[in-house]
């Protein structure tokens, strides 16, 4: 929290005296990415106009801007019945056409020119995620969460008398 505030202050300073703030740049780039995830209380998203573009101070390479990310809630793995990690909102990157993956001819390992191809971030809410993406200067697409419609189920339904022709012969 305080760290962020200091970053923000540093940034406002840098905006004022933009030519003389290399130290602030350095400071922000080493730590700006972390606190967003680890702080228990995420700061309230501000108005877009006030969004601080992180890369102005983070020192992130320019190609990181203009990346397209998707913000979504992962759905349950249909292979399993557990629903862990479904409540968080995730950011991941659309692949870079052409430079995403190739197979290393010597060992067959997969190589990549895209250094965020494995990055995946989780947030408590989509607003947090969107705010983060805005700050980073990413184009983002928020995929709406899915509504689950499961009717009330009842064991007794298996044995209910049907007056008309049976359409299914139930089994164990």
């Amino acid at each position, binding site marked *: 929290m305080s760290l962020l505030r200091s970053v923000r202050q540093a940034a406002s300073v840098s905006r004022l005296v933009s030519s003389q703030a290399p130290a602030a740049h350095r400071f922000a780039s080493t730590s700006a990415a972390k606190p967003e995830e680890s702080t228990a209380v995420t700061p309230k998203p501000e108005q877009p106009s006030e969004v601080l573009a992180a890369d102005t101070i983070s020192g992130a390479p320019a190609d990181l801007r203009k990346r397209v990310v998707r913000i979504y809630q992962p759905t349950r793995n249909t292979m399993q019945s557990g629903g862990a990690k479904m409540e968080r909102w995730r950011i991941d990157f659309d692949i870079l056409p052409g430079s995403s993956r190739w197979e290393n001819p010597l060992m067959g390992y997969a190589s990549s020119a895209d250094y965020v191809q494995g990055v995946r971030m989780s947030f408590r809410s989509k607003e947090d995620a969107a705010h983060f993406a805005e700050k980073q200067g990413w184009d983002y697409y928020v995929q709406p969460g899915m509504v689950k419609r499961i009717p009330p189920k009842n064991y007794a339904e298996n044995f209910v008398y049907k007056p008309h022709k049976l359409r299914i*012969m139930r089994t164990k």
Partner: protein
Amino acid sequence: MLSSLARRALPRAVAQKRFISTTPSRRSDALFVHRDTKYNNPKIPFEFNPENMKRAEEIIARYPPQYRKAAVIPLLDLGQRQNKGWTSISVMNYVAKLLGMPAMRVYEVATFYTMFNREPIGEHFVQVCTTTPCMLRGSTDILNTACSHLGGIKPGQTTPDGKWTVIEVECQGACSNAPMMVIGDDFYEDLTPTTTKKVLDAFANGQKPKPGPQESGRQTSENSAGLTALSSKPYGPGEFCQPEFQ
């Protein structure tokens, strides 16, 4: 494959000498998957004879028309009786068709209930109970007697002449007359090795011995040592009434 062979072989070895800690892993029934054989494949036709068909219709009529499937057990039994005591795949398919059920639903029933024999059996089907009460009363002897008397077959086997099949079964609910065996549809109870042989011989001679306790002096399942209660003469009508009613 190997393990299933091993398991099939195991009960034979164990049958003679049984330990408390082991149970035979295969009981009366064989594999729960159908394999086409010469004597058992879907191409062999099966149909109820007119008499059974009439009975089948009677049975089906007991249930609501949409629940014809409820008649599957009685119909399979009927089919088994008509098909020399065993339920072939054709019987199951026929019953499924008759009742308008998916065949698998019939297979499920036929494989679930152990009294549907899915392999051919002998003319006389001998089922010896070996569950605890019978076992305590000497059913192992009865089983051994039956097997050796029928030419040294093993439980679960049919004699080469196709006359006899002996299997061990679980409790038939006649524990008070243990040990017992079932031949065909009848219970032969209070058996001893001698009476077992007698019963079997009688069947072999084409007779049908009287079902129930064999030479134990009991009529049914009454106490063999005589009554312990209600032993006095029951009082007759009016015995303890006012004198004017006596």
